Each structure stands twice: as structure tokens, then as C-alpha cells.
């Protein structure tokens, strides 16, 4: 068999059903053999970045790793942003790139680039395959590493001559990766101490991140929160980890989180952070973060997160679900001042509700999202882009289950939404998929509309079009002296015509009264559908913590 066959066969053995890719000089041997492996369905993308985001959306929607093919040089380098997006958000992905012949490496051959060098900061692990003897072992290792522990993207760079080399099929052997020992790092001995600290606290708060979703810890989290009477906020990526409508829900935390969540965090005495990195978007000004906390509890599967940003008093290094389940039996009695704390939080919820301006004659983004929510409830996947649209989509939907909200949190990659929505739809054909994007991010990867049309994917594209880079414009208005610099997108395509050119229906909506009919049309239509919502160009995201300030200093939407 050839190296290409060994690769493809290993992918089949790993249960891969879908590959997002783009052929080129250095991976042609793999593409030559691909038709011989009909179990592997290949989606031809229009740009490699699109492939990476599709694989990412696929993985986030169904939990299985997304697989990407790209050729050497520019093909592989076009993946970098997509790899970084997946890496920052701990999404399992396998990227298989072609590399020039092993004897050509280092000679600046045509389309040669140092892919390992360029991607090692945005991958969990990577391999350069220069010898067919490494196959298929590295493929299986890559899947193991990508999907276990803290998930992440793994890249395999395979020299073209290795793809063409011949070798006998060898029996599959057990993996041995001495530098990747997961169990050795688990530390759960303080589960009891953590449980008691939480239950006996006067003003406890739990913050839940992406790790809760990745480890399917939602039920354990709910059980623990209810048993110990602890309110729960989520990070942007933790949305869906705890039902927003639950009486103990604080909704979203962080620098664009809800006022009542931020008040709770800033007044908590015990703060447990589960499956999250505690990054600057969660803490805002670190020195002012959760100043009344006497005991920080941090739960994360990656021990390097302990003390990276906030030094915990109690550390549980484990899968979030294992950790929460280990804590649960140790919650016996709950502090009797808990009622007063929850009453206080309810008062803050009344005092600082989410609100928006909707009386200035313009269509407001929240109107669009609320209409969308009424139609979908919690039965659709929402894939958001980055910017104001992302935060509106996070705050104005009441997600009650995991896996319904997909967005690029850590990397904040504009252009993510459309290809990720395509990947999500491939992963979950049974669910409606809505892509929410601003016009700025949308045009960065709009060429992937071809893929949506080619496969007649039922994706509803909601463009929140404000003719500007809205989040940047808001920052400039509020934090950079009101100087609007390079944020107006005065020359954008007519998106209805653009949709028509790609072969999908589209409509424009400028008035609130037309939102419903347009949504009806989108839902009636099989296949992709685009709605260009012309929203209030001055609409802002609130609450927001001014840059450089602490969470206490959040600004709210102006009163009507």
C-alpha cells in the first residue's frame, strides 16, 4: 500500500466520515487515493481557512474531531488562523498537510514552508512525517492527543514522497506516548475540602467555562449548584453549561457579562471556577477581580491553568465532570446565610437587567435575535461571528442546553461564523443552524457560500449589518476619545445580490415589521437563506466594562 492509503485507512479506522479540504501539489497522492475510500466524504472548500473553521464547527457541534486536508506552503499557512481558533478554545481537530519531498525539505522548494514551525504555537501537538514507517502510527496518536485531556488541534505534515512510498500494512499496536500521560496529572484529593468550602460559604459563586461542556459536566454542575445552593455564571464559551432561565443562573460573566453576575462575582467570598482559563475577558482588570474572595477554587483538566492568572487556594486538576461528581457527595449542610445571598442576587438582577434602546426608529439587533429565539427556542444551533453580533447572540438568547451556541471565544476570529455554521450543519443535519454575523466578518470568508449552496445546507444566515465594524466603533467612541478611525464600511456588497450570485435566496430587512415575514421565508426555504438586516448603526453592546477597569465599573445600556 502507499503512504496515502495508510493515512486514509487510519482515518477510516478512527471513524472519520467527513473531511474538509483543498488539494494541491504536495497532497495530490492522497487525493489520488481518496476515491478508493468512499467512506470518507470530502467537502471541497473555497479557502483553507474555511476548511479549518468548518472542521472546528463540526467538532463543536458533535464532539468528534474535525478533519482538514491542505497542501504545503500557502495551503497549510492558510490554516493557521483556523488552528489558532480551535487551539484557543480547546477544540479537537486533525489537520493533515502535504509537505514537499523529504529530500527537498530545506531547499526552498516550490510551495515549501516550515509548517511545523509556523503552527507549533497554535497546535496541541504536531508531526513531520519523513518516513513511511511513521505511518499509520502518527495518525492514531494524533487522534488520541486531539481528543483526550484538554482537546486541541493536532497537525500532521506528511512529505509527498512518503505519501507515494510503498509499505506493508502492519497490525495496529497499542499507543505508547510517554510524554503524554493524562492520568498522572489528575489531582482530586481536595474534592472534599472544595465541596465544604463551597457549601459553607456565605456568598459563594460558581463560574463555568467551556470545560463543563467538553466534559459533559452539565448535570453534575446543576446537581452541585442546587445541592449547595450556589449561583452559577458562565463564560462566553461556557454558555449552555447551565440553563439561563434557572433561578440560580447568573447568565454570562466577564467584561460584557450581566450586571447581576458581575455584582455576584465582585461580592463573593468563595469563587469556584470550573473548566476555564480565567483570562482577561473574564477578570477585566486582574487586580480588581473578585476582591472579597477568601477562597478561590479552580477546577481544570490542564494543570498549567492553576495559578496562571489567578492563584487558587484549592486546586482540582481533573476533567470537570469527574471533579464535580467527586465534590457532590461531600456537600452535606449548606450555610444558613445562603438565603440572604440569593435574595441579594435577585435584587441585583432586578436592579441591573439586560436592556436595550428600541424607540429610535431603527431596527435593533436585539429585536432580530428575540424574534429568532421565539421561533427556535432551544432547538437550533446558533453560530456567531466575532464582535457586537457575538455578544448580542450570547446575551439575548436563553440557551438552556449545551452545544447550541458556537463562537470563537479565545481567538476572536472574524470570519468564523459562516464556515463554522457549515461544519455544524454537516455534524448535526437534524438541527436548524443559524449563522449570526456582522457584515465585516461575513465578507472575510463569504466565499464559503459556495459550499453551503453546493450541498444545499439548511443554514439561515442572519447578517446584522450596521455598515461599520461595530465593536471597534463602539470602543473608539467610548475608550479612544471618540475618534472614529477606519471603521465605516461604506463600500460593502449588496448582500441580496451577492447571495443571488452564489445561488441562494436573500432578502433585505430594514423595519421591525418585516423581521417576522423574512424569518418565515427563511424557515420555509430548504437550503441556505440570507437575510441582510439593516440595523441601527449606533447600536451598542451593554453591559460593558471600560477597558482597563475592574468588573465593578461596568456600564449599562442607557435607560429608555
Amino acid at each position, binding site marked *: 500500500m502507499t503512504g496515502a492509503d495508510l493515512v486514509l485507512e487510519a482515518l477510516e479506522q478512527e471513524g472519520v466520515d467527513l473531511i474538509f479540504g483543498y488539494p494541491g501539489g504536495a497532497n495530490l497522492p492522497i487525493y489520488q487515493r481518496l476515491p478508493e475510500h468512499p467512506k470518507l466524504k470530502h467537502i471541497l472548500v473555497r479557502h483553507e481557512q474555511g476548511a479549518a473553521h468548518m472542521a472546528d464547527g463540526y467538532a463543536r457541534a458533535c464532539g468528534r474531531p474535525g478533519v482538514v486536508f491542505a497542501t504545503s506552503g500557502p495551503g497549510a499557512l492558510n490554516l493557521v488562523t483556523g488552528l489558532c481558533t480551535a487551539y484557543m478554545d480547546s477544540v479537537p481537530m486533525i489537520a493533515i498537510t502535504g509537505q514537499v519531498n523529504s529530500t527537498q525539505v530545506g531547499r526552498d522548494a516550490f510551495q515549501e514552508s516550515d509548517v*511545523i514551525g509556523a503552527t507549533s504555537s497554535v497546535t496541541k501537538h504536531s508531526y513531520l512525517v519523513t518516513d513511511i514507517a511513521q505511518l499509520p502510527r502518527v495518525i492514531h496518536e494524533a487522534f488520541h*492527543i486531539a481528543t483526550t485531556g484538554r482537546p486541541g488541534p493536532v497537525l500532521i505534515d506528511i512529505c509527498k514522497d512518503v505519501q507515494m512510498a510503498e509499505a506493508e500494512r502492519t497490525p495496529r499496536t497499542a499507543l505508547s506516548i510517554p*510524554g503524554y500521560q493524562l492520568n498522572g496529572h489528575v489531582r482530586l484529593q481536595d474534592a472534599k475540602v472544595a465541596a465544604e468550602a463551597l457549601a459553607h460559604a456565605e456568598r459563594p459563586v460558581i463560574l463555568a467555562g467551556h470545560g463543563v461542556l467538553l466534559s459533559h459536566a452539565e448535570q453534575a454542575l446543576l446537581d452541585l449548584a442546587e445541592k449547595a445552593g450556589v449561583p452559577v455564571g458562565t463564560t462566553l464559551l461556557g454558555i449552555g453549561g447551565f440553563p439561563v432561565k434557572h433561578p440560580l443562573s447568573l447568565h454570562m460573566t466577564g467584561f460584557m457579562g450581566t450586571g447581576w453576575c458581575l455584582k455576584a462575582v465582585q461580592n463573593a467570598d468563595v469563587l469556584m471556577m470550573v473548566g476555564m482559563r480565567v483570562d482577561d475577558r473574564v477578570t477585566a482588570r486582574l487586580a480588581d477581580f473578585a476582591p472579597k474572595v477568601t477562597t478561590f477554587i479552580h477546577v481544570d483538566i490542564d494543570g*498549567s491553568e492553576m*495559578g*496562571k492568572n489567578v492563584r487558587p487556594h484549592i486546586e482540582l486538576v481533573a476533567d470537570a465532570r469527574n471533579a464535580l461528581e467527586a465534590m457532590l457527595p461531600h456537600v452535606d449542610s449548606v450555610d444558613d446565610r445562603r438565603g440572604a445571598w440569593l435574595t441579594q442576587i435577585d435584587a441585583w438582577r432586578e436592579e441591573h437587567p439586560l436592556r436595550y434602546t428600541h424607540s429610535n426608529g431603527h431596527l435593533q439587533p436585539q429585536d432580530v435575535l428575540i424574534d429568532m429565539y421565539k421561533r427556535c427556542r432551544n432547538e437550533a444551533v446558533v453560530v456567531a461571528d466575532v464582535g457586537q453580533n457575538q455578544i448580542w447572540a450570547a446575551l439575548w438568547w436563553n440557551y438552556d442546553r449545551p452545544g447550541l451556541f458556537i463562537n470563537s471565544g479565545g481567538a476572536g476570529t472574524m470570519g468564523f461564523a459562516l464556515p463554522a455554521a457549515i461544519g455544524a450543519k454537516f455534524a448535526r443535519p437534524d438541527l436548524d443552524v443559524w449563522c449570526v454575523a456582522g457584515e465585516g466578518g461575513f465578507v472575510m470568508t463569504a466565499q464559503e457560500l459556495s459550499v453551503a449552496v453546493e450541498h444545499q445546507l439548511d443554514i439561515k444566515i442572519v447578517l446584522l449589518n450596521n455598515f461599520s465594524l461595530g465593536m471597534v466603533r463602539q470602543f473608539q467612541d467610548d475608550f479612544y476619545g471618540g475618534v472614529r478611525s477606519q471603521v465605516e464600511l461604506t463600500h460593502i456588497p449588496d448582500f441580496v445580490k451577492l447571495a443571488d450570485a452564489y445561488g441562494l435566496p436573500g432578502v433585505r430587512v430594514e423595519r421591525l415589521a418585516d423581521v417576522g415575514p423574512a424569518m418565515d421565508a427563511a424557515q420555509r426555504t430548504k437550503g441556505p437563506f440570507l437575510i441582510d438586516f439593516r440595523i441601527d448603526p449606533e447600536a451598542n453592546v451593554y453591559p460593558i466594562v471600560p477597558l482597563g477597569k475592574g468588573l465593578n465599573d461596568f456600564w449599562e445600556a442607557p435607560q429608555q
Partner: protein
Amino acid sequence: MSDRIRVLSVLVEDGSSTLTKVAGMIRRRGFHVRAITVGPSGEPGRSRMTLQIDAGHAEVDQVKKQLERLVEVVEIEDLTEHDVHSRELVVARVKASAVPELVAKGARVLEPGSVSTTVEFAGEGEEVGAFVEELRRHGNLDVVRSGPVVMRRTA
């Protein structure tokens, strides 16, 4: 030694990418390399790196934790607060006239000559530092100095 500096003995898998991955991790986390020594380990297919790393603006325990995340890293021993043997090597070309004094301080002659003589000296970091000062006083002609290799003292 500054409390920002960690001394780590790192067992790594041999491979074309190992050194760049270790170096890349150090660079992108904002750490700085003070000294690095690499050589074969007792195990086939693996090398031993001895690193002295300044944690920079990061928390000092991040140095070991971040390096542990690399799949190429098999094992790390943090020797910072341990009693260790830490040995460095100096090879120097010196004027023949300086040789007797240097030999008296523990140097060994590698290559005698009528104009210049090549000597070596091994010792703990501070001893080696003192020896290099001595060389400078004698107006050495050329000097190369290794990073440290470090091993825990037996109890």
C-alpha cells in the same frame, strides 16, 4: 540566584522539532533562557536538557507546567530548590606563562604549546565564574564556556 529562575532537568524525545518546540514554548510564554545544555541521556532515543529559565513576567511555576504540556517532554525535574551537583566546563587558550598559576587553581592542560596552551576547568557555576575572572586577569586568548549540567545530590 534570583527567585525568578528555575533550574530544570528535562528528559525529551529526540526529534527534529523538539528543540524548536521547547524554545518556542519558552519564547511565547515570555520566559528567558539563561543557560541551556543538551546531550544524550542514558535512554536511547532521548536527550537530557538542563535549562536555567527566567520566568519573566509569568508566575514561576508556569515554566515547568508549560514545558510539561509538550508531548516531546517526557519528564521534568525541578532542581531549583534542591541540593545539586551543578557542573560547568571552560576551555581556554592562554599564554604559556599563565599555565602554572591556572593549573594550581585546578585547570588541566589539554594541549601544551610554546606560545599558547589550551586548558580546561570544570566546576560549580561560581567556581567556573571565578576561574573565568582569573583567565581575564591573565589576558586569555580565547575562552568557551558550557552551560551547566545538573544532578541531584544523593541524600
